[in-house]
């Protein structure tokens, strides 16, 4: 199985290549991708240099163009596709079927991958994008169990890539407006979720309170580590009970299911985290690389090491295990 690794900067890109990534994925420094964070992502020049470095090491580069085109400004996304193709991207990762139509029409030989943000969660949905736009691979939404994936894999003609490590969307990806409801900025339109520009921390007695826009997302008593106020991982009150209403502040780790994923027909494993620093990327990529090739005796120690890399956070198998629902 291919290991698909994130890079938010040229430095992280090199680290990922050197650490053994089969593929590095990244995006341009604008709203055309879903990690449109300040100080992150690649200029055209940086992407050109990074692709050249990757090619020299036999590593592929995928370019994420996975936000939804703003009406009237489609040219921004079209030019990003043109440039990704011209600079030698091995695949473009696209969510908007308006943009998929552009890729299919103007760059029919370019390898097209369906982004997780497209929410293609079943056989008919995937076949729609394969038939209509020639998609070669689908990144499955994080709402399926491993048996679901195996069943789907038997009935489609394109490859399957899944997220195995890093951040976890609780909601079906590409179908969530929680962030724009609270801040006016959304993953689909702006490439951001719960953006830092709208985050505030405030001391209230002994508690540290985190806010997103006008809303309190969490409250941390003295001594409890204050996590980032991602909306769907906040503490709320539902029917008189206080707690994490949607999901605890966990991250995804399904590396102890890699045999199951392989048997299900998955061809590529993806690491989330283009916003992470290069040291994190290097460590995670090299550990996952070793986990993939390890025998069953040495694998548990590596998986334990990965748990420590999740920043001391709890981890979850998410929807890959049925009981998560």
């Amino acid at each position, binding site marked *: 199985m291919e290991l698909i690794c994130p890079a938010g900067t040229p430095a992280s890109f090199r680290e990922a290549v050197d650490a053994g990534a089969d593929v590095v994925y990244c995006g341009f420094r604008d709203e055309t991708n879903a990690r449109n964070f300040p100080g992150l992502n690649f200029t055209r020049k940086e992407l050109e240099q990074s692709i050249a470095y990757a090619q020299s090491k036999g590593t592929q580069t995928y370019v994420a163009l996975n936000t*939804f085109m703003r009406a009237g400004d489609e040219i921004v996304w079209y030019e990003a596709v043109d440039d990704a193709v011209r600079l030698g991207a091995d695949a473009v990762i696209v969510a908007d079927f308006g943009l998929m*139509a552009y890729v299919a029409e103007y760059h029919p030989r370019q390898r097209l991958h369906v982004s997780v943000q497209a*929410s293609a*969660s079943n056989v008919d949905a995937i076949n729609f994008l394969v038939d209509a736009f020639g998609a070669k691979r689908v990144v499955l939404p994080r709402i399926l169990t491993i048996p679901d994936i195996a069943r789907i894999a038997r009935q489609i003609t394109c490859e399957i890539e899944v997220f195995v490590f890093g951040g976890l969307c609780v909601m*079906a990806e590409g179908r969530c407006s*929680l962030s724009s*409801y*609270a801040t006016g900025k959304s993953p*689909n339109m702006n490439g951001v979720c719960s953006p830092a520009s709208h985050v505030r921390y405030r001391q209230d007695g002994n508690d540290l309170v985190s806010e997103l826009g006008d*809303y309190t997302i969490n409250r941390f008593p003295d001594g409890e580590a204050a996590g980032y106020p991602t909306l769907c991982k906040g503490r709320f009150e539902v029917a008189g009970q206080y707690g994490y209403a949607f999901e605890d502040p966990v991250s995804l780790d399904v590396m102890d299911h890699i045999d199951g994923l392989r048997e299900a027909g998955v061809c590529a494993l993806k690491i989330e985290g283009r916003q992470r620093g290069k040291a994190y990327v290097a460590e995670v990529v090299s550990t996952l690389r070793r986990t993939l090739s390890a025998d069953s005796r040495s694998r548990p120690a590596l998986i334990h090491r990965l748990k420590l890399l999740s920043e001391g956070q709890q981890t979850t198998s998410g929807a890959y295990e049925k009981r998560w629902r």
Partner: protein
Amino acid sequence: MKKPAPTLALGPVLYLWDGPKWRDFYFRIADEAPVSHVTVGETVCSKRLHFTEPYIADVIERLQTAGKTVRVVSLAIVTLERESQYVRSLIRDSGHIVEANDLSALRLLNGRPHAVGPLVNVYNVAAARVLAARGATSICLPPELPMRSVAQIVAGVPEVAFEVFSFGRVPLAISARCAHARSKGHTKDNCQFVCSEDPDGLSVDTLEHRPFLALNGVQTVSHTCQALVGELSDLALCGVSRFVLSPQDCDMVAVSRVYDDVLKHHIDVEDAMSRLHQIYPGVPLSNGFHHGQVGAAWIAHTKSVSLGAEI
């Protein structure tokens, strides 16, 4: 070509109501509500289908007899084989226009006239053109879309009838996980249909007791009720064909009359707002998405946010 005057459409009931209540709701809509189109069926959770199944034929017949155009809705989230089979049979067997709410329905409806619901991501003209070429005759645009985008898309694909989500708590997210069941100590697979206890959603409040969101099974909706009222004339001017009213647990016939009165210029915006507050008390109204702002916000209607100034 001048488009006909816009009309009102009733979206599907998003919440789990018991069967007789659901049936009687539609019977009254058929008899009294000034809406041209009604979309019926379950879109949020496949586990709920059996609640309305015994009544849907009677409901459709009553609505059609009253002269309404009836559409049936597809599921928003399809992961199980059982769910795929349901969508396939719905599309194969339905004599009515189907409203697609995920990509699987779009594939199955290719080449025949169909509607596209608000949960399909149509953010631009190119995406709308893809759907129109495959047979979509109407598209309800995503609720988070600002006016500037609505105007561009409507102008760019004149052969499609566009709809805008104009009343109701906004569907904001959907998950494989059921936060509603979990809030009552269950999981999705053993949910015991506890979402039926909250026919207008279960409030999610901040730790400071401020209402924020509401749970509706696997779906999360806004606490506020999106109410595009002062915006209707601009939307009509730019060519929107229908205004969608999403059923809440309030007098939806009265809601539809308010919107009808606004469209016919029988009442002004202030009157309409005060009537909506009476019909659906205790729920703040919002229109921020339409104005490209925080979705929960209420932007006072002034000339400065009229169509001319915004584009």
